[in-house]
Every structure is written in structure tokens, then in C-alpha cells.
């Protein structure tokens, strides 16, 4: 930031001038992006931030020349070091990709070829773009692996993508993007698929590489926390339009556009609200000493046990929200699935009200299932796309002995509660947005009149503004119905805002638990502290315009 003055004299690496990209006829709007302009100077990071459908990814793919055939740039120009990318031939674009611009994608597993070793994949890039002999290429690859801080580069060279962790895979992708020292690095949500602790490391790595090489970085993200961490410049997009563009400091603290204010206000804070009175009464859902061990057999028939969950315990009372937080692979979802008996635990007791259901056969379990209901992460997949919303809504109630008329009356009532029109019952899930579908999933769960609602990453796939609405809906339903709520999430901010108590899990075990405010203020365990430190930077307080 201090060098901004001297850099202003330099010409921008990437310059987008009044770019518009048309959507195919019949879309929800005419243009994917409309008259967007930006400049990135060498050594600067510009964050493009927006919710899903804002057109931010279309912009990144336009720059790379990777737009799907259906989308056509109709106005404006994209200049990379003064050269127009929209006019460039396919051959010229291929030369520029990798050489002059590198790209890091969201999901490293799909960005890498699963049947090629990591070394060969980077080597392919080098042999395409350079005429270096094999030894020089190999030396260069080892050097870049070291620079992206991969452990044991020689081994990485021979490894296949599936043998590496998510963070290591993303480092390989970054290594490929930066090995030829491109002037421009495009990162499209590079940390969204990663855990917070890994995200922190990857963000730091990108910043370090940028400093060393002086590249310009175009960084696409939906996460305001990430923006606060790395951006020099910010471009806020909504519905394909640029809402606001400016210095990171200005946009985050003194946003001029109303939309930016809304977006910032929707980001949940890390500070928990004051605690409610502790609910009394017996636990409606509890697990004691719950364990799940998977046994796999190799080709000789030898068994190898993997403990996914060890000695986990939880109790949820009426009107209480208990959060389970942890990174991927921490066992939090396994625990939740055991508690709802979607998978069978190998050890421990699971009580629904007073009934131990841990080993109950499905036939006896079915009449009790209305007590505990579940809302899943991905609203696109949690409703059967071949059935109308109405058919999905009445299924549960009718399974528990209500007549069709009763169930339909209840469905109408529930539509009002989740603030969707009654006509929604006649439509199919594909006609709703992600947030609306999540409301439908909640309504479907409530139709069984549960005592406890288990939400497994129920807001993780949603945009922040939608996230806030769904959280409110859950809070409302809880206070009206006296529901117990078990909330599984990887997002510490969401847990802070919603949960009364939080359980931290790591590698299949409970590491720490306590009242949310106490836990967030004074984490006791090392792991908890690391986890909290890795959470994206707190947003600076908003100032009056």
C-alpha cells in the first residue's frame, strides 16, 4: 500500500475497459456482466467480491479466454500489458496462458489430472511453453515446489493428486500458475474449498509469491474476510454490474454503495451475542460415548479399522442451540449422522428423549423418527427434483399417520412460516433459488413437528445475505416451537452468532466445549486457538459515510 504512489506511474498489467458479456437469449438478464472496468498495477491485488450470480467468475474466464461458447463479449476490451485479449487468436491466447497469466481454480482436485503425477503435469506446462532440456525443467519444478512450501519436493514430483491433502493440491496448482512468473495471476475462489487453517496458509503463500515476483493478482472471492486480509483494491459486483470500486480501506470502512453496506452488514461477526438464560429440563437429543469405526479390507482380506469418531458426547435441550465446529475430516458430520441414525454408530448410547435408539432396528425406529429432523448442506440436492414441493412437504406428515388433507393444510401453514407463497407447493424444486430451497427443506423438516432439528452445514452453501435470512428463520422457528437445535458448521462466525454452546472437534474427537462467549473469549486448547487464529481477519468497523 505504501508503494501505491510510485506504482501509480506504472502502466497497469491488466486493464478491463467497459466490458460487457451477453448471456444467451432467455436468461434471467441480458448480460452476465455489464460495462465493468478495472485496472491492476504490477504488485497489486484486486479483489472482485460478490454473491453467486454476480458475474465475478465470468470476468475471470473472459480474461483467460475460457468463456463457454454460449457467452459472447459484446462491448469493451480486455488488455493484458497493452495487448487485447478479445482480439487475440486461439494460438496467441494459448501462448499467453501459463506464460503471461496463470490461473488458480477453486477445486484443486478437479483442476489436476488424477492419472498423471504432479511432476509430469507441471513438466507438461514447461515443455509446452519453453525449450528447456529435461534436467533444467526438473530443477525448475523442484525449485518452484520449494517456493510454494511443499514438503519433500522430490516426493511430490512422483505423487498423484489423490495422495496429497487439499492444501498440498492447491499448492501444486499454484506452483503451475506461477512457475513461468506470469505478470498476472488470476485466483478464482482459490480457498473456498479449503479449511480455514489451510486457507490462511494459502493466502499467505499467494501474498508472498506476489511480493517476490511483483505480479498483479486478480482475486475472485465471495468472502469479505478474505478481502480484508489480502486486497489492495476492491471491486464489488452485483447482478453483473460494478457497484463500487476503490481502495480496500475505503470500501470496507467507508463504503459508498448501499449494496456494499448490506453485504458488509450481512457478514456475521466473531463476537458472540450476550448469552441467553441457560435452558433447563431434560435433554431431547443426547449421545454418550458415541463412536464410529469403519473397517476396510485389503485384497488379502486383512481388516484395517479407521476410527472416524471416538467417544463423542452431546446433549441438546429444548430451546437450546448447540454448535459442533471443526474442519473437514473432524468427524462432526459423522457424529451428526450417528445422532440422527442415518449411519449406525459402533459404540455408545444415543437418546431421543428417553429412548435409546443407538442399536434400534429401523422398523422400531421409524415411528420415533419425527422427534429428530435434519436439514442438509446442499439445497440443490436435498429435495427430490422429480417431485413437486407439495409432494415433498406432505411426505413426512403422512408417514406419521396424518391424512392427506391434514398434511396439506399443514404444508400451507408452513409455507407462510418460511415466507414462501402457497403456490410454491405446486412447483418443482428447480424453480427456486438456493435460499428458497433451503427454506423448503426447513419447512419439510418442521412438518414432522420435531423436538430437535439437526442442521448439517445448513447455511454453508449460501451467500452471506441469504445465510442471514436462513439463520433468522431457524432462530424464529426455535423460539416459537421450543426446538432444540444442533448446528454443525465449519464457519466459526456463524457458530458465534447462533449457538449457546459450542463443541470443537478435531480428528474424530471432541477437543473442547463450553458456552460460546467463554469459549470464544478464552479458548483453552492449542487446537482451538489455532482454529480461531486462522479465521479470516475481522472486518474493520464501518464508519459513517
Amino acid at each position, binding site marked *: 500500500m505504501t508503494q501505491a504512489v510510485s506504482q501509480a506511474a506504472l502502466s497497469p498489467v491488466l486493464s478491463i475497459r467497459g466490458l460487457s458479456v451477453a448471456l444467451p437469449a432467455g436468461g434471467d438478464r441480458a448480460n452476465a456482466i455489464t460495462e465493468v472496468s478495472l485496472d491492476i498495477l504490477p504488485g497489486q491485488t484486486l479483489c472482485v467480491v460478490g454473491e453467486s450470480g454476480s458475474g465475478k467468475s465470468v470476468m475471470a474466464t473472459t480474461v483467460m479466454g475460457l468463456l463457454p461458447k454460449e457467452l459472447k463479449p459484446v462491448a469493451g476490451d480486455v488488455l493484458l500489458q497493452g495487448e487485447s485479449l478479445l482480439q487475440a487468436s486461439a494460438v496467441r491466447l494459448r501462448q499467453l496462458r501459463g506464460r503471461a497469466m496463470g490461473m488458480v481454480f477453486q477445486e484443486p482436485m478437479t483442476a489436476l489430472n488424477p492419472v498423471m503425477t504432479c511432476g509430469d503435469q507441471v513438466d507438461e506446462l514447461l515443455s509446452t511453453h519453453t525449450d528447456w532440456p529435461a534436467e533444467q525443467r526438473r530443477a525448475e519444478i523442484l525449485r518452484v515446489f520449494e517456493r510454494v512450501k511443499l514438503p519433500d519436493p522430490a516426493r511430490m514430483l512422483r505423487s498423484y493428486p489423490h495422495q496429497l491433502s487439499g492444501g498440498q493440491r492447491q499448492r501444486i496448482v499454484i506452483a503451475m500458475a506461477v512457475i513461468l512468473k506470469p505478470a498476472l495471476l488470476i485466483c478464482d475462489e482459490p480457498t473456498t474449498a479449503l479449511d480455514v487453517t489451510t486457507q490462511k496458509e494459502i493466502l499467505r503463500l499467494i501474498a508472498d509469491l506476489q511480493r517476490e515476483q511483483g505480479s498483479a493478482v486478480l482475486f475472485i472471492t465471495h468472502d469479505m474476510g478474505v478481502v480484508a486480509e489480502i486486497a489492495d483494491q476492491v471491486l464489488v459486483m452485483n447482478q453483473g454490474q460494478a457497484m463500487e470500486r476503490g481502495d480496500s480501506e475505503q470500501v470496507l470502512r467507508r463504503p459508498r454503495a448501499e449494496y456494499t453496506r448490506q453485504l458488509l452488514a450481512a457478514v456475521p461477526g466473531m463476537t458472540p451475542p450476550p448469552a441467553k438464560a441457560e435452558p433447563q429440563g431434560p435433554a431431547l437429543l443426547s449421545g454418550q460415548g458415541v463412536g464410529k469405526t469403519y473397517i476396510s479390507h485389503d485384497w488379502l482380506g486383512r481388516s484395517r479399522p479407521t476410527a472416524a469418531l471416538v467417544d463423542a458426547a452431546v446433549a441438546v435441550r429444548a430451546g437450546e442451540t448447540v454448535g459442533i465446529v471443526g474442519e473437514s475430516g473432524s468427524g462432526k458430520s459423522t457424529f451428526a449422522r450417528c445422532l440422527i441414525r442415518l449411519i449406525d454408530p459402533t459404540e455408545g448410547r444415543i437418546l431421543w428423549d428417553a429412548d435409546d435408539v443407538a442399536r434400534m432396528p429401523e422398523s422400531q425406529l421409524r415411528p420415533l423418527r419425527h422427534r429428530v429432523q435434519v436439514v442438509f448442506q446442499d439445497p440443490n440436492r436435498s*429435495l*427430490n427434483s422429480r417431485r413437486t414441493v407439495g409432494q415433498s412437504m406432505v411426505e413426512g406428515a403422512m408417514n406419521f399417520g396424518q391424512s392427506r388433507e391434514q398434511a396439506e393444510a399443514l404444508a400451507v401453514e408452513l409455507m407462510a412460516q418460511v415466507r414462501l407463497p402457497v403456490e410454491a407447493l405446486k412447483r418443482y424444486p428447480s424453480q427456486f433459488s438456493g435460499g428458497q430451497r433451503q427454506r423448503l427443506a426447513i419447512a419439510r423438516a418442521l412438518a414432522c413437528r420435531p423436538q430437535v432439528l439437526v442442521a448439517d452445514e445448513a447455511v454453508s452453501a449460501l451467500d452471506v445475505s441469504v445465510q442471514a435470512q436462513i439463520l433468522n428463520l431457524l432462530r424464529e422457528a426455535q423460539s416459537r416451537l421450543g426446538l432444540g437445535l444442533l448446528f454443525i458448521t465449519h464457519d466459526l462466525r456463524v457458530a458465534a452468532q447462533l449457538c449457546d454452546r459450542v463443541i470443537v472437534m478435531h480428528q474424530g474427537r471432541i477437543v473442547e466445549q463450553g458456552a460460546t462467549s467463554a469459549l470464544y473469549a478464552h479458548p483453552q486448547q492449542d487446537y482451538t486457538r489455532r482454529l480461531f487464529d486462522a479465521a479470516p481477519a475481522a472486518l474493520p468497523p464501518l464508519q459513517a459515510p
Partner: protein
Amino acid sequence: MNAIFRKLLANGSIRFGASVLLLLIVVAAIAPWLGTVDPAAMDSGNINTGSGTVGQFALLDGSSVAHTFWMGADNFGRDIYSRVLYGTRVSLLVGLFTALVALLVGGALGMLAGYFRALDMVLMRFMDGLMAIPAILLAIALVAALGAQLWTVVVAIAIPEIPRVTRLVRSLVLTLREEPFVEAARALATPTPVILLRHILPNAMAPLIVQGTFIAASAVLTEAILSFLGLGLPADIPTWGNIMAEGRVQFTQYPGNVLFPALFLVPTVLAINLLGDGLRDVLDPKFAKRSGA
């Protein structure tokens, strides 16, 4: 529904395949009114009449009708044109019923194997065993054992196809059963048979329909092969396969007896396959084009 129908019609392969098939179905249905005579009737006065000849055909009851021999007559004096048109009926019925039998049985077994893991091992090993026997050999053996009738031919051709359908459905069910909407249905206490029929089957339908068309195409072909080898339907029922088989003996003098049924067989199989290709492009999400980001 209307939108899906329009999408299907927008696909060239589907339009072509469906129109050809529709034409064949109409031809098969109204064969008696298309200037045909009894396909089994032999007229000793018309042995090896050339194609295109206009003449008289002596029927079994002794009466005689004016008849155009569009495709000539064979060495028994039977009208090839009538036999080919009536043969269309057999081919289409065999194609349709074989596909239905294979889909029903294979689909049911595949759902069981995919959903009930305990059954999987036993069922799939049995299917592997079945797949190890060449399809045409198995069909020949079955027809020989069951006797040659329409239904036995259908069963004999369908049985070797069942393992393929079972595998397809099993793999679909294996992924579908992990879908959140199936888990949600379990949490809603929906009984297992209802989950299978209401939540899993409709979502597996599209690839099944596609597979069905390919089975129908290969069944039409296999039926012709069986008849050609003299193992299919008895000689008094005209099928494209046995018309060709009987024409084979004097192929060099009268090639029409083999070529005319072939001229029907090839477009039929092509049309069914094109229809299947088109359906796969439209219905299978893996082949569906991405419509913008």
C-alpha cells in the same frame, strides 16, 4: 412436460429416429391394407417372379387376385413384399418386448443389489457368470430348450441383456442412495420400498430409457440372426431373418430375396440407435451442455 417435449424435438437424431420408427410402426399396423397378400400363401405359378411384375396371385382358396410383386416372389412362390411388411411386425414386437423384459427384470434386480448391500455380492456374482456366456450362444441355447415361439425368443434375447441393465441400475442406485434427498426421506421415516419407487427410480429413469433403446436395437438384430440361423421363429411366421435365410440359397440368381429385408432391417436398427443417442444427449445430465456460468 411441454418443455421437455420441445427439447426432445429440437434434437436432430431424435427427430429422425422417431419419424422412421413411427413410419415403420404404421406400416406394420396397416400391412394388410398396403396391397399385400397372405405372406404364407404359396403360388406355384409365381415361383421366382421378378420384382416389379404386375400379375395375378392365386390364393389358397383357389381364387386369384390382381397383385403387384414389388419385390418379387421367392422359390416357393410367396410374395416377398408381403412377407417383409408382415416381418416388420415381428421385429418391432421383439425389439419392444425384449427391451421391456430386460428393463423390468434388470431394473428390479439392480435396485435390490444397489440398495441392499447384503444381496449385492450374491446377485452381482450371478450376473458376472451370466455375462461370461456370449449373448448369442445363450440365446440359441435358450430357444433350443424352450422351443421357438414369439415369447420364448423374447425371453431368450432378453436374458443375456439383463446383467447389463442390472449393472447400470445398481451403479445409479449406489450414487442415488447417498443423495441428501434420499437421506432426508429416511429421516422422514419413509418405508424402504417407497424410497426405492418414489425417490430412486424416477431419478434413474433417463439412463434406463436410453439403455432400453439400445437393447431394442440389438434385439431386432439378434432376432434376425436367430431366424437366419434357422433357430428363431418357425418358418411359417415371416421375419426378416428367415426371409433372408430362405433367400440365401439362390442369392446369386435372385439377390432381392436377401436385399429387400436387409433394406428394412438396417434403417430400423439405425433409427432406434439414433433415437437412443439423441435421448442420451438430451436426458443424461453428463452429456447436457452447460448453459452459461
